[in-house]
């Protein structure tokens, strides 16, 4: 028979296990972050940001072309992802409850869960097969990933805006479109901007879609029609290599990526929390 004491013992044990789980779950992050900082910090210098990669065996060099490449890819992706994402978010927030809106929302979530490699081979089939590897194709692939991300966060942020604001604007004689943009969208702007930044952080670290589109480039290139370097591609190539020097650069690149991701994630938490009191999980 289960005595009260044994039941309480079991309960205490299980509770202890959840504490253990909490520790074990936060451990990997701390370990990984710590390792990246330890390995990468020493390699971060001005040279890293301004120099090109050196040939095999030579010491030094940097990731200047990859950094610029990532920035260009983010730029192209944002040009595609931002307007469409915000427009779709506006639609979803205003037509909430209609079957079409529900379908779009569902599909956006599904898209968000698709492996990025699938997006990569899609972009390849669409743009690279006939025209060759290009930065533009990379931007399109990343932009396709941005669209569902920005759509959902825009919608969420717009829904937080109270309907009374919209009513007040309408009662002043604002047209519907102007209410949506000048009042509702504007009020939600901080949250939307945060969501956009989070999406940018996400796609900046993506490698798989770029394998089939931007391909990577060991030389300096800013052309949209040519293959282009990118930080994650470079990290990938370097980690596969056998040279310690390149490994060192890989860690530095990882540190750059992680730092950007961390800053944006913390800022995002801060913005959504301070605006709306309780945390948005």
């Amino acid at each position, binding site marked *: 028979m289960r005595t009260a004491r044994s039941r309480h013992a079991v309960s205490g044990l299980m509770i202890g296990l959840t504490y253990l789980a909490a520790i074990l779950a936060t451990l990997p992050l701390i370990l990984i972050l710590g390792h990246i900082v330890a390995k990468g910090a020493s390699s971060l210098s001005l040279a890293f940001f301004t120099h090109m990669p050196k040939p095999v065996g030579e010491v030094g060099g940097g990731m200047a072309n990859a950094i610029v490449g990532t920035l260009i890819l983010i730029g192209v992706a944002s040009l595609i992802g931002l307007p469409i994402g915000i427009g779709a978010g506006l639609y979803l927030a205003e037509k909430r409850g209609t079957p079409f809106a529900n379908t779009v929302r569902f599909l956006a979530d599904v898209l968000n869960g698709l492996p990025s490699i699938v997006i990569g081979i899609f972009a390849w089939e669409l743009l690279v097969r006939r025209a060759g590897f290009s930065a533009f194709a990379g931007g399109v692939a990343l932009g396709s990933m941005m669209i569902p991300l920005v759509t959902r966060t825009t919608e969420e942020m717009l829904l937080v805006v*109270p309907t*009374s*604001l919209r*009513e*007040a*604007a*309408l*009662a*002043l*004689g*604002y*047209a519907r479109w*102007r209410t949506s943009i000048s*009042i509702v969208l*504007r*009020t939600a*702007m901080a949250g939307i901007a945060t969501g956009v930044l989070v999406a940018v952080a996400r796609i900046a670290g993506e490698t798989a879609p770029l394998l089939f589109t931007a391909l990577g480039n060991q030389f300096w290139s800013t052309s949209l029609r040519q293959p282009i370097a990118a930080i994650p591609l470079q990290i990938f190539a370097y980690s596969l290599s056998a040279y310690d020097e390149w490994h060192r650069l890989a860690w530095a690149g990882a540190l750059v990526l992680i730092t950007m991701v961390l800053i944006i994630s913390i800022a995002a938490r801060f913005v959504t929390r301070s605006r709306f009191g309780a945390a948005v999980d």
Partner: protein
Amino acid sequence: MLQSTEVVREKPPRLVTPAAVVQVRAREPRVSPEETKPCIVTRHLSAFFGNTAAVKDISISIPQNAVTAIIGPSGCGKSTLLRSFNRMHETVPLARVEGSVEILGSPIYGENTSPIAVRRHVGMVFQRPTPFPTMSIRANVAAGLRVDPKSHESRGATSEIVEEALQRAGLWAEVKDRLDESATALSGGQQQRLCIARALATRPRVLLLDEPTASLDPLSSQKVEELVYDLRTTVTVVIVTHNLQQAARVSDSTAFLLMGELIEFASTSEMFTAPKDPRTESYITGRFG
């Protein structure tokens, strides 16, 4: 069991004391609604949400340059009636209006009449203060001007309009030194007066107030009531309220609605001292609602 007629003769306790009624009377000579020029005239007005009628066949003539209160228990359709005066009712999906509404002699539900144009000339203030959070106080007040194409005006003129509106709303003294601060820094009562200023900035002839003091503290409510009372010389005010004392204090005429129907419409003093309909009597004396 008392009959309804007996109730009337019994003169049950009034919510409005004779002294307060005298106070209302003492301010200005009161004229009954039938004798003043009409501002808003409805004929067989019905307002629907889908197939449910929230306002049923109301014909009422709201006098110009006076304060008219609409009272009634929750769900009686007073807000819906108010919102059909500036074509806000139709902003809700599946909402529609039947019958006619004329403002200053012209029908506002005409085929070629844009609801936006109507709303530009009729101001509205809602129950909860709704300042635009991303705008300063100045920008909030001027918000209505931006969509009023008449005002391709210089910055100077806008400032004058903003000041005038804030003066009329009784807020100028409190905010004149911080016009560029965020509107959300104001207290609830100040925000509501800001919304009134915003509505007044376009100099509308009609101002609709939907329970404007419902979420305010007594002191702020009093300030709002005073400024509403002062506005009646230049603006036709229609105020929906569930606060009977407020209606008695502030308004010249009162309309009593019950379940979407207009039961009685009379001058305020008459309504509160000698209501004609037993249902009005019951509501005013607190038997229900």
